[in-house]
């Protein structure tokens, strides 16, 4: 019984990370109908940004502090928001008028560029992320959860709630929803679609960066390819929940995190990476619009 609860907790932690990254995928797809393959790599850049910021600020194993951790996370989020906007402006905007296939291949190109660029600049070897928070286990009933993992769940929750507020209670959020509904009409209504698109990218990238820093705090080893597989699984989570749908991305992330945790703890643990893809295939065959998505009927 303890193992099941432990796996549930691990699954929730993993799922929160997937959910944060999946939100970025969903938002960008909703606004641009583009699968931003490079999003997983923005998550990786967030971890590296946090690493270098922490090193420059002198924070590290010697003097852990919660305030420092928060500062590092926020700075990394800002850095990645800028990076996301730059990617959109220079790589995606020129191909927006071309076919969807071209945009997809461009996204793949950007993803490869970031990965190999990171390998070249930062070195392919994993780096040890400074532990800004002293890790200590907190007993929850029969099982334990480290304070870092608890922080992941709590911070993710706060960020998701914050995002929901932004999307539904602010003017820019309304603009985002309008642009994802129908870009041309939004333009006709006087919405600056370019700014909205850039803002969407910035927001998604900031969330991915937060996920990156938190993962780095939890598993203090970062490498340039850490975003590849995680990004793909987060994309699956977004599709599972209904791509373009924000609560769906969260639900999808948590489901995938939990399932992966259970498979990882079972006898089929070698197949844990295949879980996400298996779910993807089942979802796309059975219900392509996802759990919360609305089925789109094609008019001929």
């Amino acid at each position, binding site marked *: 019984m303890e193992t099941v609860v432990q796996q549930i907790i691990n699954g929730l932690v993993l799922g929160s990370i997937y959910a944060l990254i999946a939100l970025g995928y969903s938002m960008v797809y909703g606004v641009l109908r583009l699968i931003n393959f490079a999003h997983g790599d923005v998550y990786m850049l967030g971890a590296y940004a946090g690493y270098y910021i922490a090193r420059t600020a002198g924070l590290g194993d010697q003097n852990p502090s919660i305030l420092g951790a928060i500062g590092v996370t926020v700075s990394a989020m800002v850095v990645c928001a800028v990076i996301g906007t730059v990617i959109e402006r220079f790589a995606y905007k020129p191909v927006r008028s071309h076919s969807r296939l071209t945009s*997809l291949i*461009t996204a793949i*190109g950007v993803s490869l560029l970031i*990965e190999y660029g990171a*390998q070249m600049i930062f070195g392919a070897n994993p780096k040890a992320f400074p532990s800004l928070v002293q890790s200590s286990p907190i007993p929850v009933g029969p099982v334990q959860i480290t304070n870092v993992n608890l922080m992941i769940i709590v911070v993710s929750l706060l960020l998701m709630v914050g995002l929901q507020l932004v999307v539904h209670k602010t003017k820019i959020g309304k603009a985002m929803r309008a642009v994802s509904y129908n870009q041309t009409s939004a333009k006709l209504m006087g919405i600056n679609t370019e700014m909205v698109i850039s803002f969407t990218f910035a927001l998604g990238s900031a969330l991915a960066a937060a996920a990156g820093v938190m993962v780095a705090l939890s598993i203090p080893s970062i490498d340039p390819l850490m975003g590849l597989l995680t990004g793909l699984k987060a994309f699956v989570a977004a599709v599972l929940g209904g791509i373009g749908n924000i609560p769906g991305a969260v639900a999808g992330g948590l489901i995938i995190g939990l399932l992966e945790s259970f498979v990882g703890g079972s006898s089929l643990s*070698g197949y844990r990476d295949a879980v996400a893809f298996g779910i*993807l*295939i089942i979802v*796309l065959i059975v219900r*392509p619009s996802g759990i919360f998505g609305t089925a789109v009927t094609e008019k001929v």
Partner: protein
Amino acid sequence: MSFAKKAVFAAVAVLVLLGLNFAVQELPFYTVAGYGISEYWVRVLMLIGINVTLAVGLNLINGIAGQFSLGHAGFMAVGGYTSAYVTCSLFFLIFGNDAARILSSGNAGVGVTSAVLVAGLVAGGLAAAAVGLAVGVPSLRLKGDYLAIVTLGFGEIIRVVIQNLNVVGGNTGFRDLTFGEGASAVSVPVQPLANFFWIFLVAVIAVVMSRNIVSSTFGRALMAVREDEIAAEAMGVNTTYYKVMAFVLGSALAGVAGGLSGHLFGNLLTPATFTFVRSIEVVIMIVLGGIGSITGAVVGATALTLLPEVLRPVDSAYPGLRMVLYALMLILLMIFRPQGIFGRREFGFDWILRRGRRAEAVALTDGADAIAGTGTRPEDDQHQPGSSERGTR
């Protein structure tokens, strides 16, 4: 073309390939004025051949049928592992317990090894085709981005499954196959059977097959599906059948190419070789050459096999820069020339003949045009009477 003519062409092609094979094997030993083709470049040549087969197969799926598949590496893996399994098993069946010794001493005989290789490649191709069928039937009702992601997912699942199969080496790779238990266990290592002849024979067959498909009713149906699936369905084309068939053929070619690469000297079949990035490399090849163009696929495969070798000095100066340039090239290609080098056009005998005929026609009609005020428009080229439709868009 009559059957006799085709047979003659085929025989000539085989002889040429055999001759080239011999030349390639002997060339590394000769140098002319200090320049020679080392074994290194021979190997690059063989990699080009394998990549050409892969690219032509993927072009059938992505370019001609218009279905975006990102899982090609998975089919390669299936073909590679299956063919290695089959060749090792056949060698064990034929030579029994002495298999390893006979094979390593080179006493196996060309006839036997060739037959076993062909059997292995056929098995690999069939296995990959079967997997392609299994993957294609559920996936091909999806379109565009979703199909791309599902094929990617299948590719990854195949890789993870292979990683967990200890009988074929699991994570460490398919080095040899062991028969029997304990002290009497016989281990047959995977033999480096692939040479220039087989690799380029397969490549030539792949290209010829693609050309024949493009100029047949089957190809027209595929292109109809590519252009507008709903219209094609309305015209009575069974879109599902044609899409799945293209998928199966493309994956069969990938399987054979995978089998060849598995039997290449010094190549090891590991799950790590067949990742999503490998699939992307093949996609880049056909995108560079022009999606939908067979010539483009060949040129793209050649260019992108040579590019890493040409950029190797750059890589030793700045490690990792090579791949960064690769990725940058892809992005710039998509921004500035998304149709690739050839677009959808082909380069073939027709093109040369047409140019010749057009030059004549221009010379004759120049006078008339000057008076009438019209000129030859590019679209007219495709409707000239007498020019064969093969290869034209």
